[in-house]
C-alpha cells in the first residue's frame, strides 16, 4: 500500500542475471549425494557378519517386482540384511541428517556458532523423561507404543519450553544470550534431577545408561517408522526457512525493520529443530559433535548461506553418521563401540584440519 514503484521505468525488459546470489554449488550437491550413497554402500556391505557384495545386491533387488524375479538369497543372510543392517543404515541417515540440520538451524536462530541440538536442554529433557519412565513406570506402554520414547519427547519439549519461557521473562526474547543461558540453566537443572533419580533408583541404572548411550544397536524398521514423520517434518520446516535463516544473520533491529518477526521465525525453527532432535535422541541416544561439526565444515568449505548449509548438512550429516555407525559395529566386531566415541574421534580431528586449512575464514 505504502510502497512505491521506484524503478518501474528502468526495469530492464531482458532478463539479466544478478551476480553473487548464493546458489547450492552443484558440484557440492552432487558430491554430497555421492558421499551419502557411498557411505550407505559401505554401511550395507560392512558388518560383523561377512556378507558378499553379490549377496547384498541380490538381497536388495529381490523384493523389487520384476527385477527380483528368480533371485534367491540365503534366507539367513537376507534376514540379517533386511531385519538388521538395512534399517540400521537408514536410521543412521535419518539421525545424522537431522542432527546436522538441527545444529545448523540452532546456530542460525541463536546466532551462536557453538549452538547445537542439545543447547536448549533438549537432550537433558529427553534423558530425564526417559529416566523417569524407566525408573517409575518400567515396561509401560500407551496405545501399544513403548512409553520411554514418548517420555523422552515430553521431556525434551518441556525443557525447551522452560528455557523459552525463562529466557523470555528475563530478556524479552530480544537477546539470544539470555535464551542460551536459560537453556544451560534448564539443562543443568534437568541433569541434576536425572542424576538424583538415577542414584535413588539404582536398579534401573543399567537401562538408563543404555538409553543415554543410544540404541542404534537394537534398531529395526520399527524405529525407522517411529522417527520418520518427525524427522521429515522437522527437516522440511527448516528447509523452507533457509531464506529467513539468512535474514537472521542481520542485526535484530534491521531484521525487524524488514518486516520479519524474529520471534516467530525463532519459535518455529526452534520447535522444528527440537522435534527432530527429540525424535532422533529417542532412538540414537545423545550423539555429540555431529550438529556442530557438519554445518561448520560446510560453512568453511562451501559457503555460509543457509541455502547451501541446510541441504548440504542433511547430505553430509547423514553420510557422516552412517560411516561412524559402520565403524561402531565393525572396529571391535562382533562387539560394538558407542557411536558417540566414534563421532568425536573422527569428527574432532577432521574439524581441526578443516579449520586450519581455511584459516582466516570467518566463523
Amino acid at each position, binding site marked *: 500500500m505504502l510502497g512505491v514503484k521506484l524503478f518501474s521505468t528502468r526495469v530492464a525488459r531482458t532478463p539479466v542475471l544478478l551476480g553473487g546470489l548464493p546458489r547450492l554449488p552443484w558440484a557440492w550437491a552432487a558430491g554430497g549425494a555421492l558421499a551419502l550413497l557411498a557411505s550407505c554402500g559401505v554401511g550395507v556391505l560392512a*558388518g560383523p*557378519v561377512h556378507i558378499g557384495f553379490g549377496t547384498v545386491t541380490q538381497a536388495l533387488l529381490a523384493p523389487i517386482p520384476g527385477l527380483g524375479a528368480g533371485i534367491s538369497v540365503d534366507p539367513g543372510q537376507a534376514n*540379517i540384511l533386511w531385519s*538388521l543392517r538395512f534399517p540400521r543404515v537408514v536410521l543412521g541417515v535419518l539421525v545424522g541428517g537431522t542432527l546436522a540440520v538441527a545444529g545448523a538451524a540452532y546456530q542460525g536462530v541463536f546466532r551462536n556458532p557453538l549452538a547445537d541440538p542439545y543447547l536448549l536442554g533438549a537432550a537433558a529433557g529427553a534423558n530425564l523423561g526417559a529416566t523417569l519412565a524407566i525408573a517409575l513406570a518400567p515396561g509401560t506402554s500407551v496405545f501399544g507404543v513403548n512409553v520411554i520414547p514418548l517420555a523422552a519427547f515430553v521431556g525434551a519439549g518441556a525443557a525447551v519450553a522452560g528455557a523459552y519461557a525463562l529466557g523470555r521473562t528475563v530478556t524479552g526474547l530480544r537477546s539470544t544470550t539470555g535464551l542460551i543461558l536459560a537453556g544451560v540453566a534448564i539443562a543443568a537443572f534437568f541433569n541434576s534431577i536425572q542424576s538424583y533419580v538415577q542414584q535413588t533408583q539404582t536398579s534401573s541404572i*543399567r537401562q538408563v545408561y543404555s538409553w543415554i548411550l543410544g540404541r542404534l544397536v537394537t534398531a529395526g524398521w520399527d524405529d525407522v517408522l517411529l522417527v520418520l514423520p518427525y524427522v521429515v517434518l522437522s527437516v522440511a520446516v527448516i528447509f523452507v526457512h533457509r531464506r529467513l535463516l539468512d535474514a537472521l544473520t542481520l542485526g535484530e533491529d534491521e531484521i525487524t525493520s524488514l518486516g520479519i518477526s524474529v520471534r516467530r521465525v525463532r519459535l518455529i525453527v526452534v520447535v522444528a529443530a527440537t522435534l527432530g532432535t527429540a525424535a532422533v535422541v529417542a532412538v540414537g541416544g545423545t550423539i555429540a559433535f555431529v550438529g556442530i561439526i557438519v554445518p561448520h565444515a560446510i560453512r568453511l568449505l562451501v559457503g555460509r548461506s543457509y541455502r547451501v548449509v541446510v541441504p548440504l548438512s542433511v547430505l553430509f550429516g547423514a553420510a557422516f553418521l552412517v560411516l561412524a555407525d559402520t565403524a561402531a559395529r565393525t572396529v571391535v566386531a562382533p*562387539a560394538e563401540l558407542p557411536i558417540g566415541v566414534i563421532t568425536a574421534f573422527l569428527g574432532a580431528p577432521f574439524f581441526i584440519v578443516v579449520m586450519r586449512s581455511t584459516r582466516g575464514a570467518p566463523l
Partner: protein
Amino acid sequence: MQEHRRRASAKLAAQIGVTAVAACLTLAACGGRQSSTPNVPTVHFPVSITAPGGATVTIAKQPHRVVSLSPTATEMLFAIGAGSQVIAVDDQSNYPASAPKTKLSGFQPNIEAIAAYSPDLVVAAEDTGGLVHGVQALNVPMLVEPAAKNLNDSYLQIRQLGAATGRPAEADSLVGKMRSEVGSFVASLSKTSRQVRVYHELDNTYYSATSNTFIGQVYKLFGLTNIADSATSATSDYPQLSAEYIVASNPDLIVLADTKCCQQDLSSVAARPGWSVITAVKTGQVIGADDDIASRWGPRIIDFMRAVAQHVQQVEKAA
C-alpha cells in the same frame, strides 16, 4: 597374548588357593572339627582373615552388629546362619526378604551413616569412596569380598564370612552342599559332541559376558560355547554385541539376565527384528533368569545353574 592371559589367570587362581590355605591355618577351624551344636559357635576369637585384596583383617571377638554393603555377602551371611548377627544391609540387598534393608549405599558409602549403626564388622564388595579407610578410622574391622571370578572364589568368600562371624562349620557345610550340587549338574550333562551355543544377555542393548566373568565360568563348567567369547580383547569382559552377530551365531540357548531391569522374555526376544530365526527362539530355549541371581556370586547361583542345566539337557535331547 592369549597364552599369557591364561597363565596370568592360573597364577591368580593359585594365589587364591594359597590365601585360602592361609585363612584356614590361622583359623584352625577349616575342614575338620565338626561342631556338636551348630547354633552355638565354638570358635575362639580373635581370628585373622586374609581377604582376596591382600589385607589381613583381625576380628577380636565374634561380631553381633554386622553391616553388609554387598548384596552377595548379605545372601552368604544369611545362608550360613549369621543373619541374626546382621543389623543393617545396603539398599541393594534385596534377598533374603528378612534382611534388615536400609538406605545405606555400597556404591556411594556414607561413613557417618555406617557408623551410626555402631557396627563391629563391615562387609563390602568394593572399596569405593574411601570406604575401607573410613571404616578403619572407626576401629571397626572391614572385610572386602570383591566380585568372584569363579565358583572357587565364591566358596572361599563363604568360608571367610563363616570364619569372620564365628560360623565356620555352617560355611563348610554350605560349600560342601554347593560343590556336590554343581557336580551333579555337570554329571547330568552328556559329554556333548555337539557344542551348545549360549548367549547371555545383561540388558536389552545386547551387553553380554565372556568366559572371563563369573557367569561365563558357569557356562564353561557346563561345556557350553559362549558366543561373547568371539569379542576381541579390545573390549571389556562385558562386551556389547552386534545384533547381526548374535543372529548369525544362532545360539541354542539364550539366558536373559534382564528380566527385571528391562522386562525381557521369550516373546519380547522373538519380537526383536530378525531374531525369530534363532534356534533358541524357535525352540523356546530362552531362560528368563533373575537379574540379581545372575549378577551375584552367592549361594543362589545353584538355582540358576539348575535351570541352565535343565535347559541344556533339553537342547541335547532335541539334538
